[in-house]
């Protein structure tokens, strides 16, 4: 599987080179060597520390990671018309981040041998998650604002930036799992029934209100609608898995929609997402707030069924195509076929995660596996749905594909957790030690 991924990525690299410069890219051997080494390290670590883990997870993630590196290389090689182009070193940096990602992947597998260990850190991780999310809003704008976007989601050290929310999502997923496993019984209690739906008791509404408030804060103070949606969705889904109460789903959904609606009315930066979604092609919007997403749609349309080929399209017209809109670049150059293949790879990873959740016995692990898988699915849904105008576009990273480090490293950490959980799920039960006694020969006189 991994070898197949290597071959595919090498082919994609060569494709970019031939299309743009008419020859093999100069750094092909170095890039491929680094990529292969990084992934083999990941593979060997998994064989060593999680031998029973789902064998599909690593090759699937490696394939997406590799495609992301190729696209970074391809975009850096051609610049951009309307935004600052990627520097030529962007490909190296992306490979470096892949190495860091695999490093974290190995570290998680090496240090967390048993998923239940994480349950001990329910509140610690919860606090870390909240701090990570709140940090950019508390820091001065000069440190936390993504240039000219108004979004306060990063922490800048010189030219190096990290987006703490990417890691906060993981910390909070673990924390939720721990909390909900501990509190699932009272939360599942039914208070009053309204219209045939059992509503939870008022005093148990606390946690969902807290999560809702936190996600709204994200929405309002950090202008980060996408993460807020993922965050809320994650919490509600885990609550539902823990309690099996449909009422939680409804409450969560209604609260998020109400919150988003109010925010859209109150804050222009939220409201304009809806305007862009509903009326992208009016002249004023097309030349203004909808310009960037429209370029993405045009790009996907120009790709058609089979795409323009890597290096053959014009993703350079779309401003900042390397981050939120990277999926449209794949759609343009790999066509409908490639876009569907990428979605199916995501779908397969999520499916492996969910089947792990079904398989694993321990409720904490079950909840965590379900939550992480759902979060990945939701993130893909929010960003791919956003750039393809299925839902309003909210800028979040595309896991593994977007250019940038935090998202890539956090995505590998997520895969590491899923690998650890699936290892626990598929590990054969230990042999009973008394077996010998059963074979004792008893002589009857």
């Amino acid at each position, binding site marked *: 599987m991994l070898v197949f991924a290597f071959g595919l990525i090498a082919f994609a690299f060569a494709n970019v080179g031939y299309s743009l410069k008419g020859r093999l890219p100069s750094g092909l051997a170095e890039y491929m060597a680094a990529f292969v080494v990084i992934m083999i390290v990941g593979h060997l670590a998994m064989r060593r520390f999680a031998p029973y883990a789902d064998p599909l997870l690593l090759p699937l993630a490696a394939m997406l990671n590799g495609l992301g590196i190729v696209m970074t290389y391809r975009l850096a090689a051609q610049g951009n*018309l309307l935004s600052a182009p990627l520097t030529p070193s962007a490909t190296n940096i992306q490979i470096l981040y892949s190495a860091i990602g695999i490093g974290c992947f190995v570290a998680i597998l090496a240090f967390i041998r048993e998923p239940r260990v994480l349950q001990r850190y329910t509140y610690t991780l919860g606090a870390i998650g909240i701090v990570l999310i709140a940090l950019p809003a508390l820091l001065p704008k000069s440190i936390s604002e993504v240039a000219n976007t108004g979004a306060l989601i990063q922490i800048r050290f010189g030219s190096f930036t990290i987006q703490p929310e990417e890691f906060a999502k993981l910390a909070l997923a673990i924390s939720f799992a721990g909390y909900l496993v501990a509190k699932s019984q009272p939360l599942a209690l039914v208070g009053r029934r309204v219209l045939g739906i059992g509503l939870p008791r008022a005093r148990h509404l606390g946690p969902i209100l807290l999560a809702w408030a936190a996600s709204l804060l994200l929405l309002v103070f950090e202008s980060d609608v996408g993460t807020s949606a993922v965050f809320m969705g994650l919490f509600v889904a885990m609550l539902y898995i823990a309690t099996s109460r449909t009422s939680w789903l409804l409450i969560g959904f209604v609260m998020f929609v109400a919150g988003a609606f109010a925010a859209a009315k109150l804050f222009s930066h939220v409201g304009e997402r809806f305007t862009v979604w509903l009326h992208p092609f009016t002249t004023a919007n097309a030349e203004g707030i909808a310009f960037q997403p429209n370029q993405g749609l045009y790009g996907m349309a120009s790709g058609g069924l089979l795409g323009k080929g890597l290096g053959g399209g*014009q993703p*350079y017209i779309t401003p900042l195509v390397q981050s939120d809109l990277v999926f449209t670049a794949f759609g343009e150059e790999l066509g409908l076929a490639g876009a569907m293949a990428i979605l199916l790879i995501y779908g397969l990873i999520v*499916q492996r995660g969910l089947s792990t959740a079904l398989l694993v016995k321990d409720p904490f692990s079950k909840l965590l596996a379900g939550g992480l898988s759902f979060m990945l699915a939701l993130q*893909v849904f929010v960003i791919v749905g956003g750039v393809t*105008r*299925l839902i309003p576009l909210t800028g979040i990273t595309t896991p593994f594909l977007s250019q940038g480090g935090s998202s890539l490293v956090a995505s590998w950490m997520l895969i590491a957790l899923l690998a650890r959980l699936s290892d626990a799920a598929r590990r054969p039960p230990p042999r009973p030690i008394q077996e010998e006694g059963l074979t004792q020969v008893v002589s009857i006189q």
Partner: protein
Amino acid sequence: MNRALRRISVAVLVMFLLLLINVNYLQGFDTASLAKDPGNSRAFYAAQNQYERGSILTSDGVTIAASKLSSGSDAIKYQRYYPKGAEYAPVTGYDTLYSQTGIEQAENSLLSGNDSSLDVRKFIDLITGKTIKGASVTTTINSAAQNAAYAGLAALGHPGGVVAINPQTGAILAMASYPSYNPDLLAVHNGNQIVTNDNALLKNPAQPLINRAINGTFPPGSTFKIVTSSTFLSQDPARNTQTSVYSPTVYTLPNGNSLSNNDGEVCGTGTGHTTLIAAFAQSCDTTFANLGVQLGNAALKDQAEDFGFNDQNLTVPMLASQSNYPPLTDKSFTAMSAIGQFDDTASPLQEAMLSAAIADHGTLMRPYLVQQVTASDLSTVQTTTPSVLHQAVSPTVAGEVGQMMLAVVQDSNGTGFQFNSNAEGGLVIAGKTGTAETGQASGLDDAAFTCFAPYANPQIAVGVIIQGGGYGAAAAAPIAVQVVKAYLAYLRTK
């Protein structure tokens, strides 16, 4: 828990199905309408930058616009550049990612290689494996004349324009405007940088983007007396340059206001009458204001239009701004119009056309800037054949007006005497000065000069207007003379 997990799995499946369906819709069904959306510039960029754009050259082979492979990680394959920058900006215009001006715009389809007339050649290039390129445009510009024109304007430092024409063909030999800009600023490939540079040029109070040579219009002042004289001479064959005309020192306009000559000069010998040629050489305002009233607005307007005034559709191939001669009923206004004041306006191109028509026996040739378009295989795609725009005046009248223009420069009373043939090493120039009061409190008058040379065998006609330059003979004429000399020197070396 497993039941809830299964339901979540179904929800995830639905989410992915929605994504897949939507991507199918977008890339399978919606492609045509998205491709046609007015905001979609992908096809435009693809067509505009598909081939290496052709060069723009002067008639003597100087490259003034060309394309080369972009450096580094540029998204657009070819970079446009302008080796001569600001000097030729009025000719080349610019080629940005979004739009063009000048020759870049007028000949865009040929330069970019998308014109249908190039289809057969492109097909041959395709099957023979040659790189397809856009066609090259050879302009009529002569680099010697252009250098002299731009250097003269730049040395003076006032806003202004110069146009030089070959009177026999209408070929434009020089087209300079000052202040100008470097088109390289707008040929950059970063959209934001283009907008920044464009805004800086647009907001520059010196207005460098305006091509004053064909789009700057100024009061023509006394150069308009060529039109008034032509009308007077054309109306009656008995009239000639020696006809005596009323030339008071102070002329009372029909509305009672009085008009004096420049600095209250006496016209002619002070008898109140002088010959037409003397009044023309000395540029007596009183004489021509009176002639204007006698001839009437309609006759002047007809004559002005035969010289190219009031033409809204003159293209060279860029659209030249209309030089204006107004329809008037008030005789006093007509008097002022007859001496190139009031609402009269003329571009440097129009000034050059006045002399060109006189130099070419009254025949005004259509001015043009594109000599030839050559495909990348060096075959000619199109060549401009000179054509007549108007018969401005009869050859007889043209000869008479030519004599009067000769007197302006060669007669010791003439306003342009400082450029007489002795002063210019035997070069005989015929011309007419103009100094237009702009009515603005600050600054000097606008200076105008139109001329042709050599008188016996005209090779070049030049029009110059300098905004705030002062006297036509002082500011405008020296530049025109330099252009004439530079071009004639070039012809001698050929």
